[in-house]
């Protein structure tokens, strides 16, 4: 399938992960115990990050990730600090649970239950656009108007957040769905969004779209900017209509139909 987005690049989080892995391997050669302690710190950090993501997105699958990573952290700390033979039964119990939760984590990852949908959203928005015409601007675009109640908007916001499609930010008179939010801002609970790509639904029913320069240049071609904004707005409007009809699963099917890889976000 032809992709309109460029291949994902190595992000800062990816680089940190690779560096941590290299350090772990080097430490493993130098000192087994120190390597285990380092591994424990890394998994603990990962568990904290997963916990924050869980709190921000309310995506329950991340609780499995938090528990799995905490168990891994306990296991590695145990190896670093105690004698395995003395606490053999404890180690077996923790290792068993860890394997169980890690397996669940892998299964959920393959099922895309814990996958951020930013790239899929950008790819879906670009699907109907064939016109190539650079028209980048820093202005948002009002792409449509629809009728919904405040409760419906809040429910939809909750759905979008849980399914990792976007992070909702409550503004003065609207809810802004921030697509492709950087991990740093997510972890810091930052509500800053104006320089990112977002779709806003205000209390009067106006739907406004903004595509950031960073996201726009993720496309292989300079797609017609106004059409791209309109398409992203229509996509969200379509999602909301589907969700209101009780067809939330169709939204996910639509995203999964792109068959993008299960890990990268770019």
């Amino acid at each position, binding site marked *: 399938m032809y992709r309109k987005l460029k291949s994902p690049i190595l992000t800062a989080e990816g680089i940190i992960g690779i560096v941590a892995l290299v350090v772990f391997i080097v430490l493993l050669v130098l000192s087994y115990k120190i390597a285990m302690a380092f591994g424990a710190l890394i998994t603990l950090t990962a568990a904290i990050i997963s916990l924050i993501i869980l709190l921000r997105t309310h995506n329950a699958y991340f609780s499995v990730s938090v528990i799995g990573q905490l168990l891994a952290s306990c296991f590695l700390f145990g190896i670093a600090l105690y004698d395995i033979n003395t606490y053999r039964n404890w180690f077996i119990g923790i290792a068993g649970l860890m394997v169980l939760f890690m397996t669940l984590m892998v299964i959920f990852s393959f099922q895309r239950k814990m996958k951020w949908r930013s790239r899929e959203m950008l790819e879906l928005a670009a699907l109907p656009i064939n*016109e190539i*015409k*650079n*028209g*980048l*601007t*820093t*202005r*948002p*675009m*009002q792409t449509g108007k629809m009728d919904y109640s405040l409760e419906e908007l809040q429910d939809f916001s909750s759905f979008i957040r849980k399914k990792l499609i976007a992070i909702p930010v409550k*503004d*003065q*008179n*609207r809810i*802004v769905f921030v697509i492709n939010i950087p991990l740093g801002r997510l972890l810091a609970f930052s509500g800053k969004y*104006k320089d990112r790509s977002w779709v*806003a639904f*205000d209390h009067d029913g*106006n739907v*406004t779209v903004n595509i950031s320069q960073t996201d726009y240049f993720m496309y292989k071609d300079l797609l*017609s*900017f*106004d*059409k791209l*904004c309109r398409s992203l707005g229509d996509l969200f409007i379509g999602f909301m209509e589907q969700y209101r009809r009780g067809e939330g699963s169709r939204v996910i099917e639509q995203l999964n139909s792109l068959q993008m890889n299960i890990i990268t976000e770019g």
Partner: protein
Amino acid sequence: MDFKRAAILGSYISKDYAEDLFRLLVTYQDISASEAASRLNLHIKTVQDFLEAMASLDILSKKEVLEKKRPYYRYALNTRYIDMKIDLNPLFNIKQQESKSTKKIRERSNAGVRFSTSRDGQYISHVALWIGKGRDRKERRINLSIPQGKFLFHLPFPSAEPMSVEDIMEKADVNETHRSEVLDIVKVLVEYGVIESQ
């Protein structure tokens, strides 16, 4: 009185010495620049500029006289009443004419401008442009009125089809009474290459 003449009169009449000079002109039948300058202890060039400006506005009349073959001017008051009425309608009419043009506009591609939205995200609050080149490059920020901001919020994107000012105003729900301020910002942004008109 048109705006340019009013501006000349305003700038000279606001000088500290203007009242003294007019007092001399009322008192004397006619007076030369050097006589007035020596009387008021001012520089002759200052007085000459003042008198020339007033003569250009027909408040004074000037007559060339000769003194030992050396010509100079003597100035006399034409009127003891100066009526300063400024008609602003011509300024407005120029803009009204512009609005009637069929030109269609949109944002220029790669205009190098930054639009900032208001807190509620419903209009553009200000535009930041870069002026100059190299080290002399400076940012110029233009704060917008709400109708202007709403108008710019709905301005067609560089890749979109251009629209007429009237159509954009209608789309943005900007009242007709704000037409002149909308046209003013359009004019400025066309000058700075942010908006292109076709």
